[in-house]
């Protein structure tokens, strides 16, 4: 009897201790908001990929005396979970946080996690591509992000491989090969024939991305954010175009070792290049392939794949200064600097007209006038409405189904069935 009571008492004490610790851990909130007007000693900036801010933040430090810590994450796939953790726990987020199109959409329904930038910076609503500016707003009207770059589309191709297969190599002639997607497929078949059966493009998901972002209508969601993935003509069009290219594809999944290795080995001769992809192509191909790549226009007119905004999390202790820093990093001069350093395409109208931008040529890509090529296609971009879980539907429903078809795991009908089924669950929010 006495043993059991003692044991229960002990258990109770242990439980009490545990709850006390649990409570402590849960309540360990540091609510030491700085006094109004106090200047921060340091601001933190989170970016993914290569946004070209290294020199800009040095200048900012010199101008303001505020130190900037630039935290870089290589891939969006690593970046997103970290950011989610910061938001879910309410701590750890950088003062200025870069948001890619897909994740921005995902965060919009819970806009209160982000500061409203409109009252914190001057009015820039006329300074940027209008549709890009509008996309930075949440449904509740809150301005979440200031536009950084867009992912205007182009085609990167290997001149040396084209030549060996008997295709033209001059970028204007190459662009003339494919006024539309049919032309692109024909060029691919010709390449395959001339090269002894080698693949033309990296994967059919690259094609579906290209087609989807050409602004042919709503994709997975309609304007009211109802999921329409299985009935949307734009999605069907992308699906049909992509699946028709399976015979010229290297079946190399984007970001896989086969894909990154393929650039160096030349297992495919062309891929779709939003502006930000140029740096990735040159990194993967390595210095030995310098001058072998070139940039041509995309079949069927301009499109927009990706692009980002700078946002200030609501948990930032210095929303004023953080907003000012974001404003500085996205102004016309900064966007041109960033483009020259790492390739993100400006969204600021003034930057797009800037001589330093329009006259820029890319040495790695056979001195292609990338400023001119991308600058011109930016003007043609039709904004596409992307719903809250666009990224999840694209990455976890559409692309796996396309790859299942491409690699022969499923026929076309079965793959489509897989896509529509997964789109419903992935797209629910």
């Amino acid at each position, binding site marked *: 009897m006495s043993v059991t009571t003692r044991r229960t008492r002990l258990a109770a004490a242990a439980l009490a201790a*545990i709850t006390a*610790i649990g409570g402590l851990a849960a309540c360990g909130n540091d609510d030491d908001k700085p006094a109004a007007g106090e200047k921060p000693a340091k601001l933190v900036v989170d970016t993914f990929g290569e946004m070209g801010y290294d020199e800009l933040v040095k200048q900012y430090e010199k101008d303001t005396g505020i130190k900037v810590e630039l935290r870089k994450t290589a891939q969006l796939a690593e970046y997103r979970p970290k950011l989610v953790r910061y*938001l*879910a726990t309410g701590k750890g987020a950088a003062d200025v946080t870069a948001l890619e199109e897909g994740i921005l959409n995902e965060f919009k329904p819970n806009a209160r996690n982000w500061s409203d930038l409109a009252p914190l910076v001057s009015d820039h609503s006329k300074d940027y591509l209008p549709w890009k500016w509008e996309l930075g707003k949440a449904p509740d009207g809150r301005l979440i992000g200031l536009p950084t770059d867009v992912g205007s589309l182009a085609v990167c191709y290997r001149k040396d491989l084209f030549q060996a297969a008997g295709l033209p190599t001059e970028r204007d002639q190459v662009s003339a090969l494919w006024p539309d997607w049919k032309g692109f497929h024909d060029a691919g078949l010709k390449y395959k024939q001339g090269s002894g059966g080698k693949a033309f493009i990296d994967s059919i998901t690259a094609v579906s991305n290209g087609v989807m972002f050409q602004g042919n209508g709503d994709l997975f969601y309609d304007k009211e954010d109802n999921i329409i993935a299985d009935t949307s003509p734009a999605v069907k069009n992308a699906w049909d175009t992509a699946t028709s290219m399976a015979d010229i594809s290297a079946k190399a999944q984007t*970001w896989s*070792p086969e894909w990154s290795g393929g650039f160096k080995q030349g297992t495919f001769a062309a891929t779709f290049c939003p502006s930000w992809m140029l740096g990735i192509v040159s990194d993967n191909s390595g210095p030995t392939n310098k001058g072998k790549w070139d940039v041509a226009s995309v079949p069927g007119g301009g499109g927009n794949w990706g692009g980002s905004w700078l946002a200030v999390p609501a948990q930032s202790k210095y929303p004023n200064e953080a907003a000012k820093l974001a404003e500085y990093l996205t102004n016309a001069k900064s966007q041109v600097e960033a483009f020259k350093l790492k390739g993100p395409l400006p969204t600021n109208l003034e930057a797009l007209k800037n001589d330093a931008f329009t006259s820029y040529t890319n040495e790695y890509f056979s001195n292609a006038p990338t400023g001119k090529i991308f600058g011109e296609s930016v003007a043609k971009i039709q904004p596409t409405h992307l719903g809250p879980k666009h990224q999840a539907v694209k990455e*976890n429903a559409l692309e*796996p189904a396309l790859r299942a078809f491409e690699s022969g795991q499923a026929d076309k009908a079965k793959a489509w069935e897989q896509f529509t089924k997964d789109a419903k669950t992935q797209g629910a929010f």
Partner: protein
Amino acid sequence: MSLSATTAPPSPAAPPSPDLPPRQRRGRLFNRLDVKYSPYLYIAPFFLIFGVFGLYPMVRTAWMSLHDWDMIGDHSFIGFDNYTRLFSDEYFWNALVNTFGIFALSTIPQLLLALFLANLLNRTFLRAKTFFRMVIFMPNVVSVAAVAIVFGMLFQREFGLFNWLLSFVGVDPVDWDGQRWSSWFAISTMVNWRWTGYNTLILLAGMQAIPKDLYEAAAIDGASQWRQFWQITLPMLKPTFIFVVILSTIGGMQLFTEPLLFANGNILGGNQRQFQTLAMYMYEMGIQNLNTAGYGAAVAWAIFMIIVVVSLFNFLLVRRSAK
């Protein structure tokens, strides 16, 4: 003790006298408290740490699983809906089948191999025993990410070593992550490579604890090595073997990193989820999809319950067969 029985017993310690000075009395009280409570103090750190990092997350996860929980938004209580949803979720069952498939492919050959190696290392005639024991443990020291990345490269379709080797015997290149059997095989290979040595060492330690005179007696009676292994080693090794089986079960049910890196970091585990494990499905639902964190928590608890059931089952099975 027994020797002193013939001599006069030592005088017992003086009974506590009420006349002792207060200081000494306090010392004795302290002594008594010390004996009684200090052990709890000594074991407290483990329980405190377990409470914070083990129990609290478990309770919290259970709480989450009863909610419709948005990671960065609202939570609303929905009772056991998440659990009932599990039963009709095709992808949950798919992940369950994958997990058990890879578990069987990795655990069974691995334990048999470990048993064989341990027995070999236990033989007295082997030279440089320490060296072999060290070497066999080495794969376990290598980081799991490095293992998965290297094996992922070996199992590549285009430039992979295995397909290159297969091409010499006239076999067409295998799309390793494309099919169920090949992806399971590739992942089990990684697991086996990493954990066989670890289990070998534990089994070896168990074997070393078996008294040598049993073997000597058996040898004198004319029992062969093989017979000694079946009649002495295996039965005596039973407790260690149960331990190893349970450890492997827990590891196998939580398999995550190898299949994830094998899929180049894609949480789906192949285009048709052909090698998505339960842990990956939990991550997909609980962390990747922001708005289904509650459902992810329910998957986490389902994994926990499955581990308990499978461990019990294995325990009973191993205990019976070893009898």
